[in-house]
């Protein structure tokens, strides 16, 4: 088992090294063989491990194997080990499984890109970093993995480095993630100072004093909020859509952004020690879910709609974890990985078919041309909207149920508010998803009808709305005639179909207690009991109310979207005068405010420092020192006349002085 789990880690790393060093000289087939092979074998090994794990009893499922003794100093020792327990196994399967599908899809999406080898090298590197993050058994190696996935994300967002906006987005993501890394690092310092250990086993068994536990958990949550794009550190994720679409699907929807959810679940014994931290987690999750969903309502770039939707769904996961239902958070993580990867890959297929177009206003009517993409996208949209019996329904229902259970158990009115937020967000989710769906697939194609005047208007608009990235996706957006639109190749549609199937059946790994099958809950019983033991139980009647309301909200959202956009997406110009619309459309002016409050002053400070501190003080200092020597040597060098006679006289003079000195001394 040790060797197997090690290879899950090593194979993607090998793939990265081989592709990184030699990929440039390899033919396309070799690149794909190595890229797919590394990830595929890792998935196979993870699956074998998983089957092995299922055959053991629940008590023996946690397997912590030391691979390398790194540091041993006195009583302190630090090992690099692989922790394979049901939680990391679930993550491992999602990461390598969804990762493999996206590797396959990328071969089609990136087929024409000269940087194909670089792309697969980075993808393999990401899989390596994420596996390291998941199977690390100490906080230190968690931090290493945590940092490396951030690096992978940076590299892949900035993959098209010729584009300014992509580079800027990559930097933004990196900087904000560093804030999170700092939080994680401080949390680890605090944990070590208080408990003297870094491995999960010892730390999670340790009881911290109340204040310390809260501080540690809040610092950990800073890290989670940055990685999982929660308020107030979410801003990088929408910008991260500058990266290639498979990257958005893999890193910025299915796997990396869920690292925060994983971390909270992993450190749940710590969070159980601090009710304050849990309340913060639940609150931030709920507010983020609603906030991001509201922004997603009005976005025009299809990838950005999905990005805000991801933020919103991550908020749901944190909501579940905040009410002790960690298993529920992980459940939603898994189903979300399926349907959000599906939606992103579907969006990628649409963008690919339209030659790089991402603006919903230039789509429409694609149902007739992109049938496979359309059907799978519809399944994804239904799944995320929480329509029974698709995956999203079960996990979202589980979350809302546990929030309501917490509300009734604690009697705290804020949990009721949180539950209502959850229901409302479910409705909003359905609405924006079907606005997106109808915008892309319903009505008639708007890509070729755009007249020159409209185009100019859009360009002007795009200038003052920095929200719209017109040239995103590929290097150049080409307008493609409707008849020229073709369904994507098989290499891209196959992953879509597989993910669509998973989005349909993925929910059945959850609990079916609601439907008279109280014994059926494979995921919950697979995961360690600590991940759901503290969650309150909901009476069946209330559970039905919660389920019914969330379903109703979803149906209502879809209905409204049908009412407004069913006949095709019309960009409502009269809405533009509405201040509320403007506020939401500009994403609550958060980027503008940040620019004004943080970026501009820091840039001004930097410019001032360059000019005055560096120019006058530092450069002046070094110039001054050189001037001192220059000046003094100008005087001294006159002694060096170059005439031998003068030197001889000097020697004579010196000898005379010495002789006189000794003569006088006697």
């Amino acid at each position: 088992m040790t060797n197997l789990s090690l290879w899950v880690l090593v194979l993607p790393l090998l793939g990265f090294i081989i592709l990184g060093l030699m990929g440039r000289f390899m033919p396309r087939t070799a690149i794909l063989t190595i890229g797919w092979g590394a990830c595929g074998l890792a998935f196979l090994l993870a699956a074998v491990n998983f089957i092995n794990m299922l055959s053991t009893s629940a008590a023996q499922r946690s397997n912590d194997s030391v691979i390398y003794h790194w540091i041993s100093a006195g009583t302190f020792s630090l090992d690099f080990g692989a922790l394979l327990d049901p939680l990391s196994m679930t993550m491992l399967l999602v990461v390598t499984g969804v990762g493999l599908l996206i590797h396959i899809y990328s071969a089609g999406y990136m087929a024409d890109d000269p940087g194909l080898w670089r792309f697969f090298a980075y993808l393999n590197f990401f899989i390596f970093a994420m596996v390291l993050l998941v199977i690390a058994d100490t906080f230190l190696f968690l931090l290493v993995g945590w940092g490396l996935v951030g690096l992978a994300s940076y590299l892949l967002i900035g993959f098209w480095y010729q584009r300014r906006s992509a580079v800027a987005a990559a930097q933004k993501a990196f900087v904000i993630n560093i804030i999170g890394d700092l939080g994680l690092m401080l949390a680890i310092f605090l944990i070590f100072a208080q408990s003297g250990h870094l491995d999960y086993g010892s730390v999670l068994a340790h009881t911290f004093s109340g204040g310390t536990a809260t501080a540690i958990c809040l610092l950990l949550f800073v890290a989670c909020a940055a990685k999982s794009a929660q308020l107030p550190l979410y801003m990088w994720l929408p910008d991260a859509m500058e990266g290639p679409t498979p990257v958005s699907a893999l890193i910025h929807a299915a796997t990396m952004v869920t690292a925060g959810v994983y971390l909270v679940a992993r450190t749940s014994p710590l969070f159980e020690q601090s009710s304050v931290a849990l309340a913060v987690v639940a609150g931030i999750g709920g507010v983020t879910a609603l906030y991001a969903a509201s922004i997603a309502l009005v976005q025009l770039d299809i990838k950005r709609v999905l990005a805000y939707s991801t933020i919103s769904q991550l908020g749901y996961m944190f909501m579940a974890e905040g009410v002790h239902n960690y298993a529920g958070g992980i459940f939603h993580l898994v189903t979300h990985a399926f349907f959000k990867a599906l939606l992103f890959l579907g969006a990628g297929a649409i963008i690919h078919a339209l030659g790089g177009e991402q603006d919903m206003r230039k789509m429409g009517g694609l149902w007739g041309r992109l049938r496979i993409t359309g059907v799978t996208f519809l399944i994804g949209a239904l799944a995320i909207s929480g329509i029974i019996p698709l995956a999203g329904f079960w996990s979202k229902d589980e979350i809302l149920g546990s929030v309501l259970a917490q509300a009734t158990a604690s009697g705290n009115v804020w949990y009721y508010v949180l539950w209502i937020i959850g229901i409302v967000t479910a409705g909003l989710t359905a609405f924006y998803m079907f606005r997106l769906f109808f915008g892309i697939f319903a009505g008639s194609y708007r890509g070729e009808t755009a007249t020159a005047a409209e185009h100019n208007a859009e360009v002007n608009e795009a200038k003052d709305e920095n929200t719209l990235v017109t040239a995103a996706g590929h290097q150049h957006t080409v307008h493609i005639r409707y008849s020229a639109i073709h369904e994507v190749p098989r290499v891209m549609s196959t992953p879509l179909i597989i993910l669509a199937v998973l989005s349909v059946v993925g929910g059945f790994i959850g609990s079916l207690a609601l439907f008279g099958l109280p014994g059926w809950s494979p995921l919950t019983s697979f995961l360690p009991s600590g991940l759901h033991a503290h969650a309150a139980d909901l009476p069946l009647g209330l559970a039905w109310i919660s389920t019914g309301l969330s379903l109703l909200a979803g149906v209502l959202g879809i209905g409204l979207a049908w009412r407004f956009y069913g006949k095709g997406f019309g960009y409502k110009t009269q809405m533009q005068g509405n201040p509320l619309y403007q506020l939401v459309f500009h994403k609550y002016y958060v980027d503008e405010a940040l620019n004004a409050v943080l970026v501009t002053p820091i840039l001004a400070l930097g410019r001032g420092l360059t000019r005055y501190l560096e120019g006058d003080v530092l450069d002046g200092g070094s110039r001054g020192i050189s001037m001192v020597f220059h000046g003094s040597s100008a005087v001294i060098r006159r002694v060096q006349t170059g005439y031998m006679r003068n030197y001889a006289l000097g020697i004579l003079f010196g000898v005379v002085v010495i002789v006189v000195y000794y003569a006088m001394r006697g």
Partner: protein
Amino acid sequence: MPLTAYLIVSAVIFTIGVIGVLIRRNPLIIFMSIELMLNAVNLSFVALSHFLDSVDGQMFVFLVLTVAAAEVVVGLALIVSIFRTRHNIDVDEMNVLRG
């Protein structure tokens, strides 16, 4: 003759050598002046050796003679090569290393 007479002669020769080094411009003459200084020292060595009844001074004289011969060889070689490049061996013209 007393020791003082030898030492006075030695000092006079040495002073002539010093002045020669300082005022002459022809390096060959300067070499000769250096030889004068060295031999002035040799003279005082021999005289002192005789009056102190010790052979140490005479041994030093041989050492000095050897070193002087070697020094002249190097010096003449330098002068020849300077003359070949500059066609002039006036020491006052050799001030390339002026600061």
